[in-house]
C-alpha cells in the first residue's frame, strides 16, 4: 500500500533527487507487450562485470547494455557504466575485465549508475547469456543501493540457443563455444559492452527462428527460456 506512494520498500538515506526521479519514472512505465512478435520491438542485452563469480557475495563493478530493435543492433542505443567501489577488486579479477583500480574507485555513484541503467532499459525484456548470474548481480545491487526488489523478465540465450540449434546443443555450452561456431568476431571479451555486442549477435540469429521453436511472441520466448532452465535443473 505504501509502495504505491513511495517506490522504495525502505527509504535509503542520501538518495539524490535525480535518482529518486529516475526510479519513479521507471516504475511508472508500462510493461512491455508480451504478445508482440518476438522479432519486433526492443530487447535489451545486458552484461555485468563483478569482483568475482560468486553472485551472492561479489560486488557489481560494471554494467553494459545494448538495444536490439526490430531485429537490428543499434550501436548508438547502448549503455555502459562503472559503479564506484569502496576498494578495488583484486588483481586477478582486474585482469579478467580490465577495469583498473582507479577506474573502479572513481566510478559513478552506484545509485545514480543503477538509476541510469533503469532509465536505459525501460520495461523492455532483458537478454543475457547465463542470465541468472547477471540477474542476481543486478538484483542485489539495486536492493542495496536503491532499496527495492528488482524483478524483470530475462531471456537467457544459453537456454534458447540449444533449442534453436539442437544439433549443437550437446556440444556447445559456454558463450565462447557459440561464438566460435557462428564465427562471431570478438573484439574484447569480458568488457560488459563487448560481451553485450556478441550476445546480441546471437540474439539476432535466434529471433528469426523463434516461431520455429514454438515462441511466436516475445512473452512466449521469455517463458520458454525460463521453463527450459527450470526443466534442465529439475
Amino acid at each position, binding site marked *: 500500500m505504501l509502495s504505491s506512494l513511495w517506490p522504495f520498500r525502505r527509504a535509503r538515506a542520501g538518495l539524490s533527487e535525480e535518482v529518486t526521479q529516475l526510479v519513479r519514472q521507471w516504475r511508472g512505465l508500462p510493461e512491455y507487450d508480451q504478445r508482440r512478435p518476438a522479432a519486433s520491438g526492443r530487447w535489451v542485452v545486458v552484461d555485468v562485470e563483478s569482483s568475482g563469480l560468486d553472485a551472492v557475495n561479489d560486488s557489481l563493478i560494471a554494467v553494459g547494455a545494448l538495444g536490439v530493435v526490430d531485429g*537490428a543492433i543499434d*550501436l*548508438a542505443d547502448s549503455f*555502459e557504466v562503472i559503479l564506484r567501489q569502496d576498494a578495488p577488486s583484486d588483481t586477478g579479477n582486474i585482469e579478467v575485465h580490465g577495469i583498473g583500480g582507479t577506474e573502479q574507485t572513481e566510478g559513478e555513484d552506484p545509485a545514480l549508475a543503477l538509476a541510469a541503467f533503469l532509465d536505459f532499459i525501460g520495461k523492455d525484456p532483458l537478454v543475457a547469456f547465463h542470465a541468472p548470474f547477471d540477474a542476481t548481480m543486478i538484483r542485489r545491487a539495486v536492493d542495496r543501493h536503491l532499496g527495492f526488489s528488482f524483478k524483470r523478465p530475462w531471456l537467457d540465450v544459453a537456454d534458447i540457443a540449444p533449442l534453436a540449434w539442437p544439433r549443437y546443443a550437446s556440444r556447445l555450452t559456454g558463450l565462447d563455444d557459440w561464438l566460435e561456431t557462428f564465427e562471431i568476431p570478438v*573484439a*574484447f571479451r569480458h*568488457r560488459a559492452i563487448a560481451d553485450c555486442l556478441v550476445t546480441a*549477435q546471437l540474439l*539476432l540469429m535466434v529471433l528469426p527462428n523463434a516461431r520455429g521453436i514454438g515462441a511466436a511472441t516475445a512473452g512466449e520466448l521469455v517463458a520458454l527460456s525460463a521453463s527450459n532452465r527450470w526443466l534442465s535443473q529439475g
Partner: protein
Amino acid sequence: MNERQPPPLLTAATADVLRKHAPFDAMRKADLEHLAAGLKLRYFAKDMVLLSPDSGRIDSLFIVQRGAVQVEEPTQVSLNTLAGTLADGDCFPVGALIAGRATTLRYRALRDTFCYVLDETRFKEVMARSPEFHAFCTRRLAALLATSRRGTREAYSNRAADELTMASPLRNAIRHAPVTLPESASVRQVLELMKSRRIGSIVLTDGGGHPTGIFTQTDVLNRVALAAQPLDRPVAEVMTRGPATLPASTALSEAAQLMARRGFRHVLVTDEDLLIGVISERDLFGLQRLSMQGLRKDIGRAESVDALAFAAREVRELGTAMLAQGVAAEQLTQFVSALNDAVTERAIELAMQDHDVAGIGFCWMGLGSEGRGEQTLATDQDNAIIFPDREGEDRQATRERLLAFADQVNRTLDACGFPLCKGNIMARNPAWCLSDTEWHERFDDWIRNSDPEALLNASIFFDFRALHGDATLVDRLREFLLDNVKDRPVFLRQMAANAAQTRPPLGLFGDIVGGEGGTIDLKRQVSRVFVDCARILSLAAGVGAVSTAERLRATGPRIRMSDDDVATAIDAFQFVQMLRLRAQDSLDRGAGASEPNRIDPDSLNTLDRRILRESLRQARKLQNRVGLDYQL
C-alpha cells in the same frame, strides 16, 4: 536516439573491423568513428533477400560485416548471369543510395550474413566530411577498375604459375645461394673458387660478413689479365666496390630497368639486409629477352624485312606480358603504339634504301586507331602520305615515285603482322597519296558535303598523326581542319547523328544485352561510341588532340565536363580497350574465332561484368551529352 553515442570501446572496436577494408582503411580516424558510431548491425539468414527492386527507394548503406551476399539481376534466372558476390567489407547499393532510387539488383545472403547498416543522413554526413569516403562512393568505377587490374594480374600469374614474368620478384629468379669470400682473399683464391664452382661472379665481404664488392668474369679479363696484375694481390684492389643492391621483393622489370639505366651487369639481392643471391643481366635476359629499350633497338637495327617482322612479333609478345602484369590499358596501348610506330618508321627507312624519295619532303601519316595511338594487338593498316606542292614540280610524277615506295612499305608492314587494309586506306592507294593542297581540298569537300561516305572518311582520316617525315605538313593540315570544321555546325551535327546510331548494348534495366549468341562487339558497339563522341566534342571545341583520352582531357574543361566525369569516361573507355586486348590475346592462344572484338559478357568474371556494365553506361552518358549538344 541520434544524439546518443555508443561507448568509445564499441565505436573503436567497430572501426577496427571496418579498417580491414577499403575505403575505410584510408579514412581519417575521426571520420571513420563518426561512421562507426552511426551503424546498426543486422542479421540475414542464408537465402534471405536483403534488398531488391521491390524494397523501394534506398535509404541506407549496407556494409557486409561477415558473410557473403549474392548480387542477382532479377530479369535473369540462369546461374551464369550472377552479377557478383560481395564479401566482408563490401558496400552496397552505393549508386542507388546516392541517386535516391530503388536498386535494380537483388541482394541475397549466400550464407548467414551480418551487415552493418548506415542510414542516409549519417551516410551523407560522412560523405561530406571524408574526402576518401566521398571519392570511393562517387568514383566507383575507378575503384572497381583497380580491383579488376589486380584480378587480371592474378589470373595471368596463376596460369603461368611456374613461368617467371617480369613482374615476379627477384627472389624467384635466384638460382643458387651466393658464393662469398672475404675481401682480404687473394685474386688467385677468388679465381680458383670461380673455376671450381663454375660461377661468373663472387661477392666479397668485410669482417662482419657484409658485402663490400663484387668480382666478375669480365673483371678477370680487364683488371687482372690485361692489366697484368699479380694473382697474389688482395681481390679488394680489383673488385667493384659498392655493388648495386636490391631487396628480394623488387620486380624483375625494375631490376632490369636499373641495370639498363646504370649499366650494371650484376645486382645483389638481399632479404632484410641478408645477402640471398646475385642476379646477372644474363639471368634476366634468359628469363625474358624482351625489354622495351632492347626491342626498340632491335627494331631500329633490323636490316631486313624478316628481322623487322621478328621484332614486331616480339612487340606483341611483350604486349601480352604487360597485359599479364596488369598494366593499365592506356599505358599498354601507348606502349604498343610506340613500338608499332618504331616498326613503321623502320619499314619506311628500309624502303627508302630502295627508293629515292627523301628529297620530296613528304610525311607518312598514321590514321584511325594508329593515328589515335590506340592500336590493339590485332590492327590492320590505315595510313596515307602527304607531300608538299612545290612550284615547278610535277605533282603526278612525285606521286608515282611515292606510290612505288609506299607499296613496299605497305607490304613490309603486312609481313610484320599489320594486315593490308581491306578498305584500301593505305599510302600506296593513289587516292590517299596526296599533296597538301589536295588534302586540304579533300577535307574541305568532306566537311561541306557530309554525305555518308564523307562522314565515314572523316571518322578515319580526321584521326591523323605524323609518323615519319615533315610533321609541319601535318600540323598545317590540322590547323586547316580545325579552322574549317568550327564554321560548319551542319557537318558536326551530321557526325553526331551518325555516332548516335551505335547504341551501347544496354537494356532497359541497365543489363548488358548481347546480340548473336549473347555476344557483343566491343569495338563496334562500345569503343566506337567513346571514339566518335570524343572526336566530335574535340573538333567542336577546336582541340587538336588525337587520342580519345587526350581529346576528352583537353576538351572536358572547355565544355564544363567535371574532372571526375572526364576521368570516369576515360577509365570506362580504357577498360573496354583492355577487354579487347585480353580477348585478342586469348585468340592468339587458340580460342579461335573470326571476330577478335566479340566477347560473351557471361564469360567475364562477375567483377569485370559489373565494370563493363558501368562502362556501357558511361558510353551512353557521353553519347547523350553529344546528342543534347546537337539536339538530336
